[in-house]
């Protein structure tokens, strides 16, 4: 599904990714771990198509399509979803209105009619219940005054609504207490299927107790230096990253 091949990327002339290789197949859960500054968030931004990063070498393919020429919204339309580490506030735009716009823009891009209001509401209710989201929450301004947990839960709610092929969870566990973490992880697990894949980017092993990865990769200084099964996460937790240098 996703093939990252020898990916090099710069920001402001500074090389952050120095040849990343990664392949994710449908139905798989991958985790990328690594110390601060290793390039974890850069990798997720580059896959999503953030403009300020420049890809200098290598490629990213989704279902054999080269993403290089695609704008961020076009990548989204093809099924890439990024759960942000720091979701932005959009005052005056409700959670419902935002997700409605997102879904209809994606449908428009695929040549589909707008989703009828009735179906939209039904879907919103279903997904909100799935993630134990209070209805009142849906009429609040997007991320404005949200707690850390609410922001992350809202990201997963959007993911549930958009039903992406590949969901990238960028430090979704940061700022969450254990209860919120469980709710979020539970939501992700419920959404997992044979056809989609999840890429979890995290600092700590803790989230991986709940979202169990098939593969764990260690990103260090812009390169994947070690890959393994879920036990690698435990090893990292015990030994730290220094032994991999």
């Amino acid at each position: 599904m996703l093939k990252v091949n020898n990916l090099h990327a710069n920001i402001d002339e500074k090389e952050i990714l120095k040849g990343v290789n990664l392949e994710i197949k449908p139905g798989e859960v991958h985790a990328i771990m690594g110390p601060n500054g290793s390039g974890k968030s850069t990798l997720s931004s580059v896959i999503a198509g953030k403009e300020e990063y420049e890809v200098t070498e290598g490629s990213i393919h989704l279902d054999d399509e080269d993403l290089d020429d695609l704008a961020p919204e076009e990548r989204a339309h093809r099924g890439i979803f990024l759960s942000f580490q720091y979701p932005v506030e959009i005052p005056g735009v409700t959670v419902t209105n935002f997700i409605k716009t997102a879904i209809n823009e994606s449908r428009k891009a695929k040549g589909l009619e707008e989703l009828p209001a009735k179906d939209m509401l039904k879907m919103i209710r279903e997904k909100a219940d799935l993630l134990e989201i209070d209805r009142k929450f849906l009429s609040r301004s997007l991320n404005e005054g949200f707690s850390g947990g609410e922001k992350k839960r809202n990201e997963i709610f959007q993911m549930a609504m958009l039903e992406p092929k590949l969901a990238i969870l960028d430090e979704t566990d940061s700022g969450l207490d254990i209860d919120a973490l469980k709710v979020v992880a539970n939501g992700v697990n419920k959404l997992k299927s044979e056809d989609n894949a999840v890429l979890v980017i995290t600092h700590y092993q803790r989230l991986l107790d709940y979202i169990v990865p098939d593969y764990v990769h260690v990103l260090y200084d812009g390169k994947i230096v070690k890959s393994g099964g879920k036990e690698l996460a435990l090893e990292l937790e015990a030994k730290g990253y220094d032994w991999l240098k």
Partner: protein
Amino acid sequence: MSKFTEDDLKKELETKEYEYGFYTDIESDKFPIGLNEEVVIAISKKKNEPEWMTEWRLEAFKIWKEMEEPDWANVTYEKPDFQAISYYSAPKQKKQLDSLDEVDPELLKTFEKLGISIDEQKRLTNVAVDVVIDSVSVATTFKKTLNEKGIIFMPISEAIQEHPELVKKYIGTVVPRTDNFYAALNSAVFSDGSFCYIPKGVTCPMELSTYFRINEGGTGQFERTLVIADESSYVSYLEGCTAPARDENQLHAAVVELIALDDSEIKYSTVQNWFPGNAEGSGGVYNFVTKRGICETNAKISWTQVETGSAVTWKYPSCILKGDNSIGEFYSIAVTNNYQQADTGTKMIHLGNNTKSTIISKGISAGKSQNSYRGLVQIGSRAKNARNFSQCDSLLMGNQCGAHTFPYIEAKNKTAQIEHEATTSKIGEDQLFYCNQRGIDTEKAIALIVNGFSKEVLNKLPMEFAVEAQKLLEISLEGSVG
């Protein structure tokens, strides 16, 4: 990878051409350029005005001659040559029309282009439209329904003939001829406008609506509007404008006076979309407007405006809260793009006891434009327990535009409670990327963010107008992509 930087955003915003930039070929009956006593008399004569009106105009002209064009606003422009303007332009019309069939088909085509087909309006929206094309009202609808309630809604030129006692009693009482340079000029040469009177105890059953257009190259337009809500009455009045593209600057100096008698309420909503000039900043309408209302006891006046057009805007819809317990409200969205300049805001003059005012101002600047909020909250020495709440929010796009806030507060009574809040924010690349990542392209994302920012004010507009206003915001700010 396609890159979308702030530079692209700016470029995109700059390339948006004025959507209604067409020009209707209607024969005009036009005065030679220049202004003197003879021209003032000629205008008055053309309108078959009674002598008192002619005298009133001449007095205004005398006052105007002694005045100087103000320059305190935060705008720069080449001062118009007032002797190079023709002061009267009317579509040539043989007689009064009873139905749309009799209206010049060219004119009807113009309406269609603007999306304000009168037929449609009549059938679907329950809105009575008094259409002003180039200074003379050519169609008035729904007159009958209004007549039954005793509501008078007609061109002010007709009101001067048919209801001289009302016009004479109220004209110039809220905005005196001596008020300012443009108000004096308007008083001398106003061509037409709307007049509205709601009798005691009557709630106007429909939104009253006027569409203005400037249509003849080189003519200034001087509208005069007078709305009187008698005791315990209610009226909601809508004013909307579009104008065709022009190379030369067009002057627009309107005066609007609202009179809200005891226990009455006037809601006055404006969507203003005069031609803002092209991307290089040439052409465009100069909009110097004086709008003011007076509230008697327990009365309420609410101004709501969406300002997207004009090269230069100078406009401060204000309330004189004369009566006890009266309420004044001002809700504004002002959008500037390219080289547009807006200096707009309000004055809330608290004279009565327990008077209350609310000011919500949303300024949106893009391109190389300058957007200023200028507001005065004045509490008179005898106004006990006056309250004001002001909120001024600015939204910036790109880094070549400017947002300015000039709040003035003069409180002469210790019991006054005045609150002022102000915020400035910028549409950031992070916000845009977040939207993009959810499949929303940049153009749509800007519209979404701007609508969210403006929501408190958009919500104050009547439903059908809010939709139009939202469209206008998008037209004014989106790029030509898609």
